[in-house]
């Protein structure tokens, strides 16, 4: 498990986000401002361009660069949120041995960054509604003796459930919050992209 694996994760995420750009924008059109798909696609395409140009010797360097790229290229709310996630995720892995436990700690640090920036709480109908159950499922799997593949699969599955559970919620953060009750019945685009990233991690980081 090293630089190449994490690079594969980012490349696979870029592919999946590109394929789903229209879908994410459609979700965002219903309750936001119709740019989530194109923003994520642009940001991860920029990460792939960096991966093509630069060789990284350490996992944390790679992930921090990915975070800075998202902060610099995406804008909107998803740029600082996902950018901060990768910055903190990478920082937490600096000098650490890559194990299911250290990745779990790094995921927590990354999501902590999302919370610090976005100030969301569970049930606000945001990406945190996918991240929170994913972290919980990941930890439970590791505690139960699961390997990285198993833990990431559990996290992705929990994220998908969290994503689906955003549909009946009233949005309290982000642009969807302006709709109030009218945001009910729509799946959150941020929770959807988070699930795509975790599903990609489960495929590539095992």
């Amino acid at each position, binding site marked *: 498990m090293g630089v190449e694996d994490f690079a594969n994760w980012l490349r696979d995420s870029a592919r999946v986000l590109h394929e789903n750009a229209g879908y994410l924008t459609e979700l965002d059109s219903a309750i936001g401002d119709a740019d989530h798909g194109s923003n994520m696609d642009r940001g991860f395409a920029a990460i792939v361009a960096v991966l093509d140009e630069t060789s990284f010797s350490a996992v944390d360097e790679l992930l921090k660069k990915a975070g800075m790229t998202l902060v610099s290229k995406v804008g909107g709310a998803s740029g600082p949120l996902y950018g901060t996630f990768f910055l903190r995720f990478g920082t937490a892995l600096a000098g650490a041995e890559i194990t299911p436990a250290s990745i779990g700690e790094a995921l927590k640090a990354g999501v902590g960054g999302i919370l610090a920036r976005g100030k969301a709480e569970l049930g606000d109908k945001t990406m945190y509604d996918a991240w929170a159950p994913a972290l919980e499922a990941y930890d439970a799997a590791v505690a139960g003796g699961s390997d990285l593949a198993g833990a990431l699969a559990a996290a992705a599955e929990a994220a998908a459930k969290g994503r689906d559970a955003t549909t009946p919620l009233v949005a309290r953060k982000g642009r969807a919050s302006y*709709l109030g009750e009218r945001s009910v019945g729509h799946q959150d685009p941020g929770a959807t992209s988070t699930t795509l990233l975790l599903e990609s991690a489960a495929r590539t980081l095992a």
Partner: protein
Amino acid sequence: MKKLINDPADVVSEALLGMEAAHPDRLRVDHQNRIVYRKEAPRAGKVGLISGGGSGHEPMHGGFVGLGMLDAACAGEVFTSPVPDQMMAATKAVDAGAGVLHIVKNYTGDVMNFEMAAELAAADAGTEVLSVVTNDDVAVQDSLYTAGRRGVGVTVLLEKIVGAAAEEGRPLQEVADLARRVNDNGRSMGMALTSCTVPAAGKPTFELAENEMEVGIGIHGEPGRQRLPLASAKEVAAMLVDPVLGDLPYSKGDSVIAFVNGMGGTPLIELYLMYNEVHQLLDRAGITVARSLVGNYITSLEMAGCSVTLLKVDDELIRLWDAPVNTPGLRWGA
């Protein structure tokens, strides 16, 4: 999608090329960073004023760069906030030692990106940065536990008034306090007759039937608080003015700047017709219109519709409103 564009991906950069070509006397553009600068910025001793946001709201913000308004405006993708790198570059470029004020509309993305930029600029160059966040949209009611109210029409009035104060050489803290005072005394409400099409999305953000309208919209083509049957201008004016009046609240005897803003796709003839309705409602409420502004100033691409902004003013605010301004989007006295 039917738009006067070349490639949807190039809309923002090509529009910036056009702005620079059209206004070389007043503006210069950093195309790499997508920043519109006042030609003579930075000006020694003057607080630098920066705003920015997603594109698609023209003339805001790039069209408000120039004498008596902004020193720089950062352009994001259509409806997407700019990134911290842009704001940092602009902050450093307009800082003439007197500090920089960031004027930020209250949208999650804008606030986060400007926050990151202010932290980075302070750490990097030691530039003193203060921020003011506009949040004048009364359509968002339950704002306590949410992202809060949107920054809309008052942003235009604020950039003009605060721009005049900065032009007078007032210090940063005073300029920031004035900005907050303007925001605190302004309220807005908007409505849409049509949706709009984000170039990269290629189709309208929402569908609206011939006999429907959206009330309580923002400026990003997002649906509003309510979908209602289409009504007359008189009825629509009341739907916009009443919640605004009740919110501050504005009371009998107050003086205001009354701002009827077009969302981009509504002709001036309809905006003046709406202004007439708004003016009559204010008359009836005993509110004096000290100054008015009618036109497309903070838009949502080609959306049809309008917003009403009222700003309660005193003599000082009126004097600053009347001060010379020379920008592509707003010009008088200079």
